[in-house]
């Protein structure tokens, strides 16, 4: 069973396995540092549970659940 980033709860960590997204979005996510094998941690959820704040490569960014769902973890 594959796991995606949106399934993590606050404080949980994971490592990126693959990104399943259209070309543009995939490139954007990778440019921001989500490349294969990189460690990520979910830091926080926005007031309505969406978007989520993620720590990657030593900095924090936020993205929506819809995008997080496209990032497969291992």
């Amino acid at each position, binding site marked *: 069973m594959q796991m995606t980033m949106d399934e993590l709860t606050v404080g949980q960590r994971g490592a990126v396995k693959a990104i399943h997204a259209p070309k543009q979005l995939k490139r954007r996510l990778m440019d921001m540092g989500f490349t294969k094998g990189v460690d990520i941690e979910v830091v926080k959820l926005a007031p309505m549970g969406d978007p989520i704040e993620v720590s990657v490569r030593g900095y924090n*960014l936020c993205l929506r659940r819809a995008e997080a769902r496209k990032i497969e973890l291992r």
Partner: protein
Amino acid sequence: MQTIALIGNPNSGKTTLFNALTGTSAYVGNWPGVTVEKKEGMVGGHTILDLPGIYSLSPYSPEEKLSRRYILDEQPDLIIDVIDATNLERSLYLTTQLAELGRPLLLVLNMADLLEREGIKIDTKRLSQMTGSPVVTVSASKGTGIDELKEAIEHSLREKHAALCPLFSNFIERYISHIIEDDYLHAIPKGRQMRWAAIKLIEEDELFLSSMPPLPEAFDTYLTKVRAELVAHYDDDPEAIIIDQRYKVAEHIAKDCQIRKQKEKSFNFDSIATNRIAAIPLFVLIMGAVFYLSIGLVGGYTTPILENLFGYLGSQVFTLSETLGVHPLLSGILVDGIIAGVGAVLTFVPQLFVLFLLLSILEDCGYMARIAFIMDRMMRTLGLSGKSIIPLVIGTGCSVPAIMSSRTIEHQKQRELTVIVTPFIPCGAKMPVFALMLTYFFPGQWYIAPMIYLLGIVAVIVTGLLARAIDKHKETNAFILELPRYQLPTVRNVWLQTKERTLGFIQKAGTIILLSSVIIYLLSSYSFTFQAVDAEASMLAIMGRVIAPLFAPLGFGFWQASVALLTGIAAKETIVSTLSVTIGTANLGSFFTPDSALSYMTFILLSSPCIAAIGAMFKELGSKRKLLYALLWQTGFAYLSALLVRYMVLLLI
């Protein structure tokens, strides 16, 4: 004279560095995407350009495209890569792309003052060896290291060493060298690097391919084969493989050059600011406090003082000119034109100063990006993005920078919708109109002022919902936003921004408002045959009466109100100065009634913004047709709302 370009990730402090180098005070803030246009300055006799921040040379939003186009087409003599030293790895990812452009590269490690606090040590000598570019450590906000940087710039411009290209894994390098050997590569534009072009060919970069002659068939087949072999080997698409390789290089350099101590978890403001329950109430509270402090507290105190001061000044000048026997035309221009008109506007300087001060603190501390984060879900139901909230907050100061800041929204429809709704948020220049009306008609009724802001927000919501209902595609797009570190706003930055904006307001009072006050006075004192007449028979009255009937249903169908609205197109403060010249602030009651005063305010709140903001809208919307629709919507919506407000008030009272 040579050209230098400042490039770097969003929010790495390029503009702060630009200001420190050139001694200017361009707009800075602490969220990704403050700079959306390129800015030019001079340093040591060279032209220096500040460009919008980018994460990579593959652009997504319009302002990123600007940066890419500039670096690729204009061939600057030196690229200064501004690096947030606390964010080395991701910054170096961009460096690996910049290095391939064949231009001299100078790495600037900015925010050096934060390194210690973050528990980071960077070996700059090693970094310089590994990247093959000189490295300078600065703190642009504290102003340290700037002289060393200026020396390094001169040095780099003299030496003109191209940067070292990052090397990928052998498996890919083999293909790159094969591709470079092909004759086709000689077709690349002058100044572009073969290696860079070869990588673009592997990636199948559309922007690059469209700038090149068509690929010969044999070469195209070869490239397809290369890509297939890469895909088979790495189990990913070619573009992703290259990004991955670049990050491997960045990781490798960062690992070798920096030591990061694990930070101790301490209390941070963010645990409240983005707390799931407290976040939104806190945001409302903060904005409320901003307006209460500026308009309520400071404004309530200074406005009457300044009003009396200008009134006294007017009467003194009047008596003085009487005794000196000055021509009544001249004393009229002075007293009833300039002092009444400009004075009415200048009265609001103290409270606007406080408003600008508080907004620039908000912008500088890192809270803006958090607002986008906490509000995204709500904004999405309106067909907007979390990023749309930033223009709306900035719009409480001035719509022009607010409209421009919408450019960081990647999705075109959301961006355009943000541009259209931003003017609904009352800017600082509309404040004098509301304050004038409220103090005259509703003294002590404090709850009306917040209702105006609320009405502006309602207009945003209605427009958003409507646009969403009409839009058949309902496509959603990505929302990816870096959340910058919180920082204590620097006194220097806050002061510069506040001073700049307040002076801008005062300058407008000294130019546009002054001129229009004189013109309005003359037009309202003379007939078409240039006879000094009563205001009712003046040129202005006759012109105003042409459009005045349009506003009769709204309760202000007299020419003074219409003329004031027209002059408001030049700048919204002009409405106040025009009313002061034509009616006199003390006589408002003989023209307006409470219901028409409210409908007048509603109309001003929502109708099309001033000419500067219309210009900004045109630039962002990019088409006359869209601009026309936007203005029609704003003005039509304003008209209906004003009508509704008036009849609701009439029914209730």
